[in-house]
């Protein structure tokens, strides 16, 4: 059976075709889900891809959270469906209240597009289920607002509940506790700033992203 991946598309999203390409190379069936649609078409996995939804003019993800499709995503997530927010998608999931915390401007006040080394902090999430804790992955980042922050109590619970799933080996953006990705309490909603879809082919310099995306496909089928 093939996992069906739904990739959300807001006006201003720009990584949707890349996400589809990467998942299709891994054997998934993909479809675009327009932000104005209230239905997820019974997909197995929802990807909120990177880009600049609604231009990010107000605050990253601030307008996207109100799109009709996000209500459907909330219902899907509450039922345990796997939802992965990549970059702008992570920002949207935070604004939508599906993940705690927020992403502020990089500490260096510059956009950063570069390869980073990540350490799998927890293998207990839909994103990292095929990886091992402590595993190192080379996956690029591409953001201006990737500096994860949250209050002390939230950080303490993220740490004690093993919900930090990815950390940077060398923190590029000032993110608290070197956080690159976190999951919700149900471990089925994950947000990460790095772009695994950009690291799935040898020609593009790394295949480490496929470790994460394959895990998503496997849990998507089980869901």
């Amino acid at each position, binding site marked *: 059976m093939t996992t069906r991946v739904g990739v959300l598309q807001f006006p201003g999203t720009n990584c949707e075709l890349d996400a589809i390409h*990467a998942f299709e190379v891994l054997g998934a069936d993909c479809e675009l889900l327009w932000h104005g649609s209230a239905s997820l078409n019974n997909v197995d996995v929802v990807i909120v891809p990177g880009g600049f939804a609604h231009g990010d003019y107000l605050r990253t993800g601030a307008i996207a959270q109100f799109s009709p499709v996000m209500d459907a995503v909330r219902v899907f997530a509450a039922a345990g469906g796997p939802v992965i927010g990549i970059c702008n998608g992570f920002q949207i999931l935070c604004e939508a209240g599906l993940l705690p915390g927020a992403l502020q401007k990089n500490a260096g006040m510059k956009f950063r597009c570069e390869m980073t080394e990540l350490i799998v902090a927890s293998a207990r999430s839909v994103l990292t289920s095929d990886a091992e804790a402590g595993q190192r992955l080379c996956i690029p980042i591409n953001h201006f607002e990737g500096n994860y922050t949250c209050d002390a109590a939230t950080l303490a619970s993220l740490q004690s509940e093993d919900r930090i799933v990815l950390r940077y080996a060398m923190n590029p953006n000032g993110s608290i506790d070197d956080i690159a990705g976190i999951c919700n309490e149900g471990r089925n909603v994950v947000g990460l700033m790095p772009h695994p879809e950009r690291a799935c082919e*040898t020609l593009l310099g790394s295949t480490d992203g496929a470790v994460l995306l394959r895990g998503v496909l496997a849990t998507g089928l089980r869901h």
Partner: protein
Amino acid sequence: MTDASTVALHRQLGMTDDELDAVIGELGRNPTHLELAMYSVMWSEHCSYKSSKPHLRRLPTEAPWVMVGPGEGAGVIDVGDGLAVAVRIESHNHPSAVEPYQGAATGVGGIIRDIFSMGARPIALMDPLRFGNLDDARTRYLFEGVVSGISGYGNSVGVPTVGGEAVFDDCYKGNPLVNVFCLGLLRHEDLVLAIATGDGNLAVLLGSATGRDGIGGASVLASAGFAEGAEQKRPSVQVGDPFEEKRLIEACLELYNRKLVVGVQDLGAAGICCAASETAAKGGMGMDFDAARVSRREPGMNPVELLTSESQERMLAIVEPAQLDAVLEVAQRWEVRATVVGRVNDSGRFRVFDGYFDAIGVPGANPMPPPGDAAIVCTSDAEPVADVPAASLGDGPVYQRPLARPANLDVVHNDDPAAKLRAQFADGVDLGEELLSLLTSPTIADKSWIFRQFDHQLFLNTVVGPGGDASVLRLKGTTKALALATDGKARFCKLDPRTGAQLIVMEAARNVACAGAVPKALVNCLNFGNPEHPEVMWEFSEVVDGMSAACAALGFPVIGGNVSFYNESRGANIDPTPTVGVVGLIDDLIAVPPSIGLRAGDALIVLGTTQAELGGSEWAAVTHGLRGGRPPQADLETAVALHELVRNLVVDRLLGGLHDCSDGGLAVTICEMAFASDVGFEFRGTADGVLLTDAEECFSESANRVVLSVAPDQIGTVLARARAAGVAAEVRATIGGSRLVWRRSPDDRDPDIRPVFDLDLATVKTQWSNAIPALFAQPSG
């Protein structure tokens, strides 16, 4: 008969008396205010190429694979597999000098529209940048603003910036150059041209509302008397909206894909006036245009302002009436404003009305008037406010401007830096400090600080990103890939514009060959000073001839370009700065091409010959301020052989790494290779102290050289191939270790003879990497 007020107006608009007479001759009467404004922008240097046109005709523009040559929004070439690429380069120099962030951002936005107006999805940007020295605070402000503007707009609009250049030279202090190259990908059948055909077809304006920004362009209307008061002071630099542009891209691509439009043109210089009249003229048609249908940002705008505004993020689509509803539906889905503003007819005339379409029943509705404006009053017998032959706007005057070889050029040529430098740097002097000053000079220093701010990976095509000789983009669904390089070297052109232009074309083609690609097309951005100075026009003419000769010899055409004149400040012209973008094609990309790094255990082979050629070099001109002499020789025949050789070595996978030898010469090139791979080298010099000194061997910028890293068991093959190709090749270094060592000739093993330089790789690399970031370090605390 021209009355006094008309004379005053045409001069304010930047037109000569002769040009006004030509307009009167064309119309058979005095022009209206709007007509005069339209002719003044359309016949401006920027839109009409009136000074450059006679020269540009000498460029070679044809090849069997060219689908669209110069004159359209972009040049288009066939790359096989049913695919084509659209390419263009533009300058946004003056806006960036006034407001660096928005100047650069709108430059990016404009060139992207040129590309998707051809039916192509824009997939790559590159930015050749030229600034003054970074020790000047204002230059740092301009540079940082331009980089942020490219990053802010390009990343958000969703087109990756895959390469470019940054060059720093005093001549750009008052007039930086911001050139932007864009490439788009399309299927052959999706090619769209900016042509309005079909009597009764509708012109639909898509995108942003029209404001008073950039009316007529700063140079034409800087002191126009159209409106008294505050509006006059409004900045003439437009403000970019990448989100609007992103939606416009997606909406237009969907319109093409569903074959809902006949033709499309972007709105750039001269705004609606240019787009509407040009599309009509190209189709041999006419157009009635209703200014009342244009969405406005602010109240009180008159037809002159509406027709000549350069508000960003707008496109004009030609639509058959039967498709109008479908077009409006696509626009609505992408939240793109769409209004019927014109109707194509077979009159051959471009007529502008104000409030006429409702009365005669053209479909579509008037936009809501901006707050403060009354509703449009319709009238069925309206007189046009402009009525001109559509073709006449694009058929402006052409000037054969006087040419003059600069009077001091012989003096400059005789002022060769070699003699002075030989006196100062005789063999035996340690050149380590000289090398360090080159490696930390911003033109040569690590540019990661710049390109790290650009998304260079979107669309999953980028096999080789910024920092190499050429950027390599795979074409998904095929075995093919594109290699892209931009280059320019103004100091060579200042010394000898014809040779300089050849050297630039050769370098770009060499960069593309280093990726294993065959060069297929070139676009040029010709940045020059004031064309009314005969020396500038002579430089321009020589550059065109040099570029023509190089393109003809190397076998690829010029498929588009842009001329930017009047790059001068305080009476001083910039050095003549042609920049070029070359597109190469790789037929079968089976793996990532070899990097610019060294491979430990390999031998280092230098292809080509090093001569004492320091004129215009980084070392002579930047490190030592010696700007005279002649540029290196441009041997086109050797270039053809070298490129073929290098391409085949790459394609046949015989190399561990390779790097084009250019700025800073051989020593800098090999150090850059060491930095890319963290592997050192021990080079054996061959300078004889007579024809060539150690310093000249290190820093001379002779053309036609490439440095190779070759596995020991491939050395024989590589040398034999070079011999067969007639290209000089020598094994010159062992590769490995953690030091950068250049042994002195001839006794390279004598422990009493100190090396030319012997430096610690890690230390020097850190200095090279930190040179630019250190200039922009955040204040601590």
